[in-house]
C-alpha cells in the first residue's frame, strides 16, 4: 500500500489531536473517579416538594459527617439529586437519568411506596443498591435484592397502632381512614389484620383519594359508624391537615392514632390545635435514643427547624450506605449489598438497624403524642417477627 501525502497529513493531524487531547481526557477520567457518587431521586416539585427538601437536608447532613470523617474508600462522597416531581412517571424518569451515570454506586429512593413500586423494575434491571423509605410491606417481598428499607414497614406500624389503641387506650370500636394509594391501602390492610387478631375488627374502613379538598363525607361516615377510636394512614400532610380540622369542626373528638404523617412537622403546623391530643406511630422520635437525640441536635443546628422522619431516614440511609461501602472495601454492587445485609445493631436516628434477608432494617415503632403542638415520646414497641 502506498502512503500518499494526504494520508500522511491525516495520520499526523490525528496524532497531534490525540497528543493534545490525551492529558485532558486523563484529567477528566481522574476527575470522574475523584468522588464516590450517590444518586437520590427526590421531590423538588409537586405535592411533596416540602418533604423533599427535608429529605435532602437529612442526606446532606449525613454526607457532611461522612466526608468530615475521611469519606468513603479514601474519597469524598458526592450527592447527585434528580427531581421525581412526586409522581410515578417522574420518579421513573429521574431514576433513569441517574442510572445512566455509570459512576453512581448506589441510590436513595423515595419515602412514597407508590413511587418505589414504580421504580422497582428498573432497579432490578440496573442491579445496584437503592435505599428507600416507603413503608408498604410488599416492597421488600418483591424478590428484588437491591431494595433496602430504612423505616419500619407498615406490618409493624399497623400492629403498633392496634396494640396501643386496644391495650393502652382500651378502645375496641375502630374506624380506619386511609389513602387509596399503595401506602394507604397496605397500611389500612395491615391495621385491619392486626385489629382482627386483637378481637377488635374495625366498624368502618374508609379510603379517600389523595389531594381531596373536602372530607365532610368521610367525617360523617365516622360519626355514623359509632366508632370510639380512629386509626389513619394519610399520605400527604396537606390532606391530613384539612381532614383534622373538619373532623374537629364536625364534632368528632374520639382518640386518634395515626401513621407517621400525623406527627410530621408540616401536619402539626397546618392542623394546629385540631391535632392536639392525638397519637402517632413515629419511626423518628427525638427522645427515643441517644442516636435520635444526636441527629435532632445536628439537624436543628444546621437547618433551624425541627427534625422529623422525612430527614431522619435519608440521614440513616446515607450513613449506613457509606459505612457499608467502606466495609465492603469496594464499590462493586454485590459487595455493597452483602455489607448492607450484614449491618446489625447499627444505632441510627430512626432506631437500631438489624437488616433481615428481605432488606428491612427496622422492626418496631415509637408511639408519640401531640401535646399542644409538641411531639412527646411515649414508648417504643419492637417485634421479633
Amino acid at each position, binding site marked *: 500500500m502506498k502512503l500518499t501525502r494526504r494520508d500522511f497529513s491525516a495520520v499526523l493531524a490525528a496524532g497531534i489531536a490525540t497528543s493534545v487531547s490525551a492529558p485532558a481526557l486523563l484529567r477528566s477520567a481522574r476527575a470522574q473517579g475523584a468522588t464516590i457518587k450517590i444518586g437520590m431521586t427526590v421531590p423538588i416539585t409537586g*405535592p411533596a416538594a416540602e418533604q423533599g427538601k427535608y429529605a435532602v437536608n437529612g442526606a446532606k447532613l449525613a454526607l457532611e459527617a461522612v466526608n468530615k470523617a475521611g469519606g468513603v474508600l479514601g474519597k469524598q462522597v458526592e450527592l447527585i439529586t434528580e427531581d421525581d416531581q412526586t409522581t410515578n412517571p417522574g420518579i421513573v424518569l429521574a431514576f433513569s437519568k441517574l442510572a445512566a451515570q455509570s459512576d453512581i454506586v448506589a441510590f436513595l429512593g423515595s419515602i412514597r411506596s407508590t413511587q418505589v413500586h414504580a421504580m422497582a423494575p428498573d432497579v432490578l434491571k440496573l442491579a445496584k443498591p437503592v435505599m428507600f423509605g416507603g413503608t408498604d410491606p410488599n416492597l421488600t417481598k418483591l424478590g428484588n435484592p437491591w431494595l433496602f428499607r430504612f423505616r419500619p414497614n407498615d406490618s409493624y406500624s399497623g400492629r403498633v397502632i392496634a396494640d396501643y389503641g386496644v391495650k393502652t387506650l382500651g378502645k375496641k370500636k375502630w374506624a380506619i381512614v386511609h389513602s387509596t394509594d399503595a401506602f394507604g391501602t397496605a397500611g389500612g390492610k395491615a391495621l385491619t389484620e392486626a385489629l382482627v387478631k386483637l378481637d377488635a375488627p374495625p366498624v368502618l374502613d374508609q379510603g379517600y383519594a389523595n389531594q381531596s*379538598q373536602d372530607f365532610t363525607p368521610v367525617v360523617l361516615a365516622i360519626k355514623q359508624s359509632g366508632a370510639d377510636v380512629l386509626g389513619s394512614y394519610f399520605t400527604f400532610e396537606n390532606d391530613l391537615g384539612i381532614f383534622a380540622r373538619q373532623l374537629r369542626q364536625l364534632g368528632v373528638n374520639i382518640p386518634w392514632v395515626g401513621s407517621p404523617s400525623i406527627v410530621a412537622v*408540616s401536619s402539626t403546623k397546618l392542623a394546629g390545635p385540631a391535632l392536639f391530643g392525638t397519637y402517632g406511630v413515629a419511626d423518628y422520635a427525638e427522645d427515643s435514643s441517644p442516636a435520635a437525640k444526636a441527629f435532632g441536635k445536628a439537624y436543628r443546628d444546621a437547618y433551624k427547624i425541627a427534625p422529623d422522619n422525612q430527614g431522619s431516614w435519608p440521614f440513616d440511609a446515607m450513613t449506613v450506605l457509606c459505612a457499608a461501602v467502606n466495609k465492603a472495601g469496594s464499590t462493586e454492587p454485590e459487595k455493597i449489598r452483602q455489607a448492607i445485609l450484614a449491618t446489625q445493631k447499627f444505632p441510627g436516628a430512626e432506631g437500631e438497624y438489624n437488616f433481615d434477608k428481605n432488606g428491612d432494617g427496622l422492626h418496631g415503632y415509637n408511639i408519640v403524642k401531640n401535646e399542644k403542638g409538641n411531639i412527646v415520646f411515649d414508648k417504643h414497641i419492637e417485634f421479633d417477627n
Partner: protein
Amino acid sequence: MDLALQLLFTGIGIGSVYALVALGFVLIFRATNVVNFAQGEFSMVAAYLMVVFAVDLGWPYWLSFLIALAGMALLGVIFNLGVYYPLRHRTFLPVIIATIGASILLANSVLAIYGPQPQVLEGWFETPGIQLGPVYLDSQYLLIIAVTIVLVIFNYWFFEHTMLGKKLQATSQDKEMASLLGISVSSMIMITFVYSAVLGGLAGLLVAPILFVSIQMGSTIALKAFAATIIGGFGDVAGAIIGGLALGIIETFGAAYISVPYKDGFAFLVLVLFLVFRPQGIFGERVAEKA
C-alpha cells in the same frame, strides 16, 4: 336528613369556589374565545400574596386582602400584555398553549420565591363556624357562599345595566362590529383579563383558610372549575355558577352515598355525560348572538 343537610351545605360551599373560578374562565372565553388555563394559578398567586402581607409582614388582614386583589389586577394587565396581546391575531391554539405555559411559569416562580412549604392563612372570623341544629356551618364556607351570591347579582347588573358591561358584551359577541361602533376592543379585553384575574384571586383568598396555601391549590380547583364551565356551557355566566354548584353538590353526595375514593370520578363522569349528550352545557351557548 341531618346528613343530607350537612352534605348540601358543604356541597354548596365547595361548589361556590368552583363557580368563582369558573366565572373567570367564562369571562375570558367570552371576550377572547380562548380558555385561560392559568385561571387556577391566579387563585394560588393571590393566596401567596395574602400570606406575604398578612402573615409575613403582619399587616392588617383587610389591607392585605385589598393589596392582594390589587396585585391580581396588575397580574391581569401583565398577563394580557405578555400572553394574550402578542398572539391575539393567531388562532386560538397558540394562545391556549401560551396560557398553559404561563400557568407553569407562575407555579414555578412562586415555588422558587416562596419555597414548597404549604402555608396557613387564618379565616376572616374568630369563630370557625356555628352549629345550627344538626348542621355545622363553617364560617369560611358561609362567606364564600355570600360572596358568590353578591357576585352573581353584581355580574347580572354590570353586564346588563351598565354601559361598560354592554360594551364588554358587544366585544365578546363580535369584535369587528364592536370596533366599528367605536368600542376600544383592546381596552375591553384588558378589562376582562383584569376582572378575571381579580375573580380568580378572590376565589383563592376565600378558599385558602380551608385548603391551606400551596402551589397545587390552584390547579386542583381549576380542574373542577373547568369541568363546571363545560357543564354550565362555555361562555355562559349563569351556567358557570350553576355548573360549579352542581359539581360541588354531586361530588359531595356521591362521595357520601356511593364511594369516597371515587369522589372526583363522579364530577368527571357528569362532565363526560355532558360532553356526549349535551356538549353545549345546561343552558346552551347563544349561538344566534354569536353569529
